[in-house]
């Protein structure tokens, strides 16, 4: 990855304050990931209010991890846009337990929070003990202990970051979560699952034919997706842990756009037979097919509302593509989007408060978010071919596919539009992100 180029493109968006954070972040990033940068985080933009916090290095036995726990936690919190990570490199003493803290050092740096701790080797496991202090009150806000296998090293950092995030913002974090996405390298397509920051990627399926539209089951144990391996789009459901793979929809014509019902019992799919794309529901085992939309237009990209009552979808029934909703059991559709001449790919925030979708804004495809309470719409992204928006389980961040340097990559943006990050991989083309549910998955 060419750092100079990246800095040039990002530079113009930075205010002075954010520039300092960015530099610190870049340094941390270079130290942390220069050996093997799977996916890097670049921040462009900044939130108005950021909580100043110091994340101190923990006392750790020697290990082969490329990033240390405090670096991973810092990256998580910084990327959320809600925290300003205080640079501690100039500090003479870095405590690793609460009794060593000289609070005046940290009030001088205007730190509100201070995270510190240690890692012990216990048999083959790691015992991670963390304390997070309220610097002004000189009290402990969090005392956390995790005993995990060394392979859970990054996961523990994300769990700690989630706890810190929730303690200071009052909202749950979404760092210990996973994403699915499709990569194309040469002519090879792979469906991968990785941590939300792109690390620990594992391949679920690989094929010489396209794979699109991955969709997590609500319990996080299965993935629905569309594979062209039989020279036509067919909907599969694959169990993440057993590898069991089932055809859910393979009818004449196209079978695509799977979307799970909130209870995981069925999927909305798009079938064509010999005509235009229409929305159906089908049980997760492939039985009980029911037609939901009946139009002579394109009806596609279904998404269940979180209460399961409605299916939102894209349709050109009014001429240009717009988003509509229809009762999940069928019935008449009503229009949802009215601004802009082209709105597609609706996806809900898990709390049901927001709808994100793609708007064609004068020839550029951008991520939009609509507050379903007020109807307000904001454009959040600045690419020209942005696609596939997907909400974090805490509804705070949206991930989407964008293009940079002539290839597909993933990016995130906070719902307020203030912080954008790009996750860029060294080779190939990344697209079709799907953010997994909040449930901690077995590993």
């Amino acid at each position, binding site marked *: 990855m060419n750092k100079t180029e990246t800095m040039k493109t990002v530079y113009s968006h930075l205010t002075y304050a954010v520039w300092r954070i960015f530099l610190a972040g870049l340094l941390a990033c270079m130290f942390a990931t220069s050996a093997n940068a799977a996916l890097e985080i670049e921040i462009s933009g900044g939130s108005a209010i950021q909580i100043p916090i110091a994340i101190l290095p923990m006392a750790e036995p020697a290990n082969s991890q490329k990033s240390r726990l405090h670096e991973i936690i810092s990256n998580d919190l910084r990327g959320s846009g809600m925290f300003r990570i205080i640079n501690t490199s100039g500090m003479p003493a870095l405590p690793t337990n609460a009794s060593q803290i000289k609070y005046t050092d940290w009030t001088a740096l205007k730190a509100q929070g201070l995270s510190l701790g240690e890692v012990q080797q216990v048999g083959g496991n790691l015992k991670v003990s963390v304390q997070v202090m309220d610097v002004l009150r000189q009290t402990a806000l969090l005392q956390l202990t995790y005993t995990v296998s060394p392979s859970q090293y990054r996961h523990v950092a994300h769990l700690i970051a989630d706890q810190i995030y929730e303690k200071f913002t009052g909202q749950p974090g979404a760092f210990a979560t996973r994403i699915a996405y499709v990569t194309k390298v040469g002519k090879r397509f792979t469906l991968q699952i990785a941590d939300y920051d792109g690390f620990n990627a594992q391949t679920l399926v690989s094929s010489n034919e396209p794979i699109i539209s991955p969709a997590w089951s609500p319990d996080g144990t299965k993935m629905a997706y569309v594979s062209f391996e039989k020279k036509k789009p067919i909907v599969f459901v694959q169990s993440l842990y057993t590898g069991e793979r089932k055809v859910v929809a393979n009818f004449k014509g196209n079978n695509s756009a799977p979307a799970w019902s909130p209870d995981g019992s069925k999927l909305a799919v798009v079938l064509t037979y010999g005509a235009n*794309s229409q929305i159906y529901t089908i049980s997760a085992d492939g039985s009980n097919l029911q037609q939901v939309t009946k139009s002579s237009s*394109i009806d*596609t990209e279904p998404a269940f509302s979180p209460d399961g009552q409605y299916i939102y979808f894209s349709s050109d029934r009014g001429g240009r593509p717009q988003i509509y909703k229809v009762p999940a059991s069928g019935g008449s559709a009503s229009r949802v989007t009215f601004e802009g001449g082209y709105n597609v790919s609706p996806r809900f925030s898990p709390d049901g408060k927001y709808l994100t979708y793609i708007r064609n804004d004068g020839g550029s495809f951008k991520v939009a978010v609509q507050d379903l309470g007020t109807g307000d719409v904001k454009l959040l992204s600045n690419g020209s071919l942005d696609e596939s928006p997907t909400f974090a389980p805490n509804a705070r961040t949206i991930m989407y596919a964008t293009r940079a340097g002539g290839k597909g990559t993933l990016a995130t943006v906070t719902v307020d539009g203030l912080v954008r990050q790009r996750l860029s991989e060294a080779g190939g083309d990344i697209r079709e992100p799907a953010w997994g549910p909040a449930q901690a998955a077995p590993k």
Partner: protein
Amino acid sequence: MNKSIWTIAALALVLTACKSTPMNPAKVEDSSVTRPMANAKDSNADSSANTDKINIKTVDVDTSKDELSAAELAKRQVFFDYDSDAIREEYKSLIANHAKYLVAHPQTKVVLQGNTDERGTHEYNLALGQRRSVAVKNALNVLGVNDSQIETVSYGEERAKANCADDGCFQQDRRVDIVYAGQ
């Protein structure tokens, strides 16, 4: 009756032999299974006066292949304008040639694969590509081709060229490919 049984038996033998050929199995299967089956039935239809030998001629397969590779059937791409599924005047004769062949070979099947350029979302483009393949199907239907011979599918933007900079490039992606079963 006897004759057709022999025909089928002989064909089966030929096919089994073909299938075990250890070269590029996908291709072998494609050309040996699908095409001769279609032609076996074709020739059965008018075989009452003929001998067994004529019925099992593998030449039938080759003849059919020659026919399909003839100049007027070799063109199998129909291109479209941006955001349009209207068949352009210049492709009407191409479609008519394929319709004529499919009407004459009612056992032959064809897949119409719709495609779009990369602008827009994957699933919406899949639906747009489908609309194009349906437009070609409708044109074939009008000329007498049976629905059971046609499957319309879409690749959407999945086979689009990466990083097109102008419409000359995008234009190449906005098309329907006519793909004969077994080819």
